[in-house]
Every structure is written in C-alpha cells, then in structure tokens.
C-alpha cells in the first residue's frame, strides 16, 4: 500500500515538472490531458465506482464550456465566478436528467443518458442567438492572471487533484457497483446515492468543460455530440476504470497516441479500435489494472 503511495507521488511530481521542460508542445499536450483526465475521472465516478454506464457525459462537459464562456462574455462575470457557476450548472443539469435516468438500469440507463445528451446537443446546435450554433462560440477571453499556459497548467492540475473517491461516500458507491441489492439491505437509499453521484460527476464534467472552453478560446457544438461521450468512455476503459487515476492515464495515452499517429497515418480510428478490442479481451482492467496485476505477480514471486 505504501509503495503504491510512493509510486503515485512520483508520478504527480513528474507531471508537475513538465512545465519546467520549457517545451510549449508538452505543456499544451499536458494541459489537454489533464482537462480530459478530469473529464474521464468524473465519468468514471459513475462508470467504475457506481457501476452506471453514462453514454451522454459530453452534455455536461458542453454545458460547462458554454456556460462559463457565455457568463464571461455576455454577462462579463469574472472567470472564477463563471467557472464555479459553470460547474453548478452542470450539477443542476445532472440533477434534472439524473432524476429520470436513475429510475432505469443497465442499457436503458445508458440509452436515456444518450437521449438527453442529444437533446442538449440539439439546443447548442440550433439556438443560434445564444450559442452561435454551428459556427461555435469564439473569442472567449483568457483570464489575465492565468495568461501563461504554465500557470493555467498548474491550475488545471490542482483541480484534478481533488479527490472524493477515498471518502466513506466513495466507498458506498463501490458497494452499489458491486451489489445494489445488498447495498439497499445495509440501509442505503441506492437511487439517492446514484443521483448524487450523477450530480458530482456532472459538476466535474462541467468544470472540465469550462477549462476546455477557456483553454481553446472557443466552444463548438461538437463538444457535446455523442462521439465525444464515446471518446471519454474509451479513455476511462483504456486507462482502467477500477482505479482513480486510471482514466487520466487513458486520457494521456489516447491524446498522445492520436497526436503521434496523426503524423504518420490517417487511419487513427482503425488503430484505436484495434487497441480497444485487444484491451477488452485481454486486459479488462485497462492499462492501470494490467500494471497493478503485473506488480502483484512480481512481488508474489519474490
């Protein structure tokens, strides 16, 4: 366990040191990874921890991106306020949508989250006067004190470090994943916990979205179209949904590979599909799950 901790600290320090390399490319990639890492972690609160497959998580990411941008440009709200409000909007949207979704289970739950996210996408796409529709919403101001990418990077990193999972609440979520029936019989209102998890997930997805919008100075409806929901699911599964940082690893691998592969070939989806198929068959615990079992084997053989 303690070796585990050290390993984690080592990785965190490495991440924190990236800006010192002075490479704009890596800082850019690093920020992107952390934003999507946060997004994937927030999805994984549902997927890996509560056992709920949300196929519409991009809706909250998009809601966060749009509300933060709109609040800053249209209402001239300062960034910190707009940022937190965007998160709150994500949570409220998740409360409303989740209210209906937690009544269903398994595939029906997934399909309903998808249906709602498509409604939100349609709104962003068609409501031209508010969102700019298909042309997107551009020219989002970058906050003064976060003007350097480096500082923005650290800021994102600080947000990602937030960790609820290791609390009693997080533990109860895992019991729901493992066995909702038994959880009911230790005195837990399972639907209520699922709804709260849905809201927390919506909040952090929206926070990630807000960071994304500001980071790119723009938001497009594509951000909340269904392939975006699928991509974040892939990140979580690729990295490993049974560990807290697994999805961050998934985001890192996916984003890095996509950048690298794109310079050689246009068949990125083919490569991604192959990786995913191999992973699902041979390493259902994802990259982190695989590394962990390897470590366990090594330690055991000693």
């Amino acid at each position, binding site marked *: 366990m303690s070796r585990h901790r050290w390993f984690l600290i080592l990785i965190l320090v490495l991440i924190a040191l990236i800006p010192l390399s002075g490479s704009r490319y890596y800082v850019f990639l690093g920020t992107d990874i952390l934003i999507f890492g946060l997004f994937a972690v927030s999805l994984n609160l549902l997927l890996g921890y509560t056992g709920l497959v949300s196929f519409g998580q991009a809706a909250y990411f998009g809601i966060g991106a749009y509300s933060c941008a709109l609040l800053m440009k249209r209402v001239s709200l300062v960034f910190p306020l707009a940022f937190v409000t965007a998160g709150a909007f994500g949570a409220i949207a998740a409360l409303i949508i989740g209210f209906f979704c937690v009544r269903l289970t398994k595939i029906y739950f997934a399909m309903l989250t998808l249906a709602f996210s498509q409604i939100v996408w349609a709104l962003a796409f068609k409501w031209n006067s508010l969102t700019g529709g298909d042309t997107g919403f551009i020219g989002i101001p970058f906050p003064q004190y976060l003007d350097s990418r480096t500082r923005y990077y650290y800021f994102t990193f600080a947000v990602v470090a937030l960790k609820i999972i290791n609390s009693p609440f997080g533990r109860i979520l895992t019991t729901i994943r493992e066995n909702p029936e038994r959880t009911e019989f230790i005195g837990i*209102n399972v639907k209520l916990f699922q709804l709260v998890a849905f809201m927390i997930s919506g909040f952090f997805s929206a926070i990630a979205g807000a960071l994304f919008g500001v980071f790119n100075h723009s938001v497009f409806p594509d951000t909340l179209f269904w392939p975006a929901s699928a991509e974040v699911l892939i990140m979580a599964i690729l990295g490993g949904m049974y560990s807290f940082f697994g999805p961050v690893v998934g985001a890192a691998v996916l984003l890095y590979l996509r950048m690298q592969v794109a310079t050689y070939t246009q068949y990125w989806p083919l490569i991604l599909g192959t990786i995913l198929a191999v992973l699902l068959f041979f390493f259902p615990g994802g990259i982190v799950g695989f590394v962990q079992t390897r470590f366990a084997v090594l330690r055991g053989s000693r």
Partner: protein
Amino acid sequence: MILTVENVKKSFDGFVAVNRVSFSVEKGELCSIIGPNGAGKTTLFNLITGHLPVDEGKVIFNGIETTHMHAYEICRLGMGRSFQRINIFPRLTVFENIQAALLAHRGKSFDFFTTVEPLFNEETEAILERVGLQDHRDVMSGSLAYGFQKQLELGIVLAGEPAMLLLDEPTSGMSARETNSTIELIGRIAREKGFTLLFTEHDMAVVFSISERILVLHQGQLIAEGSPEEVRANPDVKKVYLGEAR
C-alpha cells in the same frame, strides 16, 4: 411482539405465492419457517423486508407499520437480512465489506471528505473475529471459499446491529461440518446479543435443534405452527411436508 404479519398476500401474474399469511414473532425468539421448495418462504422474506411490494395485508415491525416502506428504511429500523444465494460485495476485500456496512449503519455514508481507511477499524476487526474471518481480512471477498462468503454475509448483517435477523437458508450449499459450525455460531450470537431470529432452512436436523418455534408453509399458506414437538406430531405437516421427503 417485534414482528407481526397480517393476512399478507402476494401473487405473480395470477400465481399466488403467499396467500393470506399471518403470524407474529416475539422479541428474542428463535423462529424458523419450513416448507417444501416453492412454498413461498423466500417470497415471504422479500415481503417482510420490503424487497417486494405487498399486494394485500400488513407488516408491523417494532410497532411501526412497514408494509409499504423501502428496503433500506426497514433495514434502518433494525431488520437485518441474509440471502439464500450469496450476496456480498465481491470486488471489495473482506474488511471493506464489513466496514461499508458499518459506515452505512453509523450514518457516515454521506461523508465526502474524511479518508475512509481508518474508520471503524476496531469495530470491523471485532466483527471479523466474531464470524471467524480475522485471518482473511485483506482477501478479495469474491475469491473466498463458499462457506466463508456465507460467514461474511452474516458479518455484514451483524454490522448493522439489527434487532431482528432474517436468514434465508443460512447453510445452503454447505457441507455437514460447515453447517454445524455455522448454526452453532448463529445460535451463540443470537443468544449473546438477544437477537430475534427468523430463518428458513432445508436441513431438518438443524431446524429442530435450534428453533423454539416452527412455522410450516405449504403452497403459500401457513398450515401449522408451534414448538418443534408440536410440529413434528402434526398430521398435516407429516402429510404435506415430511411425506414428500420420502
């Protein structure tokens, strides 16, 4: 009376699984329900614990009408239950299984910011010892031997400090030796803690050795109840139950 069941009825698509069953259990009593397969024992348990909605009739637990309550609410009133098929949290360790039940019972489940690991360590250890799992603390519970998993489920139920225990076939699938030690364990804990116990069991030797009172269910109806001697002597029971065993 800790539990009163009045004229409870449940049907599935016209098939009456539990038909106007009435009985009550006194505080501290060790009571069992027997009956051939399909007699409605598990359905009856599901109705009492709120796992299935009751069609007609009333359930009163500890002076409170619980007929239409949710399972988690009835659990919080002090009713613990185990299932016929193993019902644990397989990808959590043995320790975490028990600890989760304690978190829920002690009202810690909505705590977002405390670190969970050190919580209720002593209490969890005590329960592990009580059910004989202290040596398997950090094992993934899904990989435990069958008998141990049954004991773990008992531990999860005990963590809720219930006033009444409903155990559905606590020894199903166990070897004779496991059965004996489990029954001895359950009897000892129930007596020490003053639990009220209501259980179903297929092993007649077990039923007659520890029950103070036996209820006999047949085709959804209660056909007899009384002390082990009375039930053994009852001609109806002999006919429909013990007769079938031959």
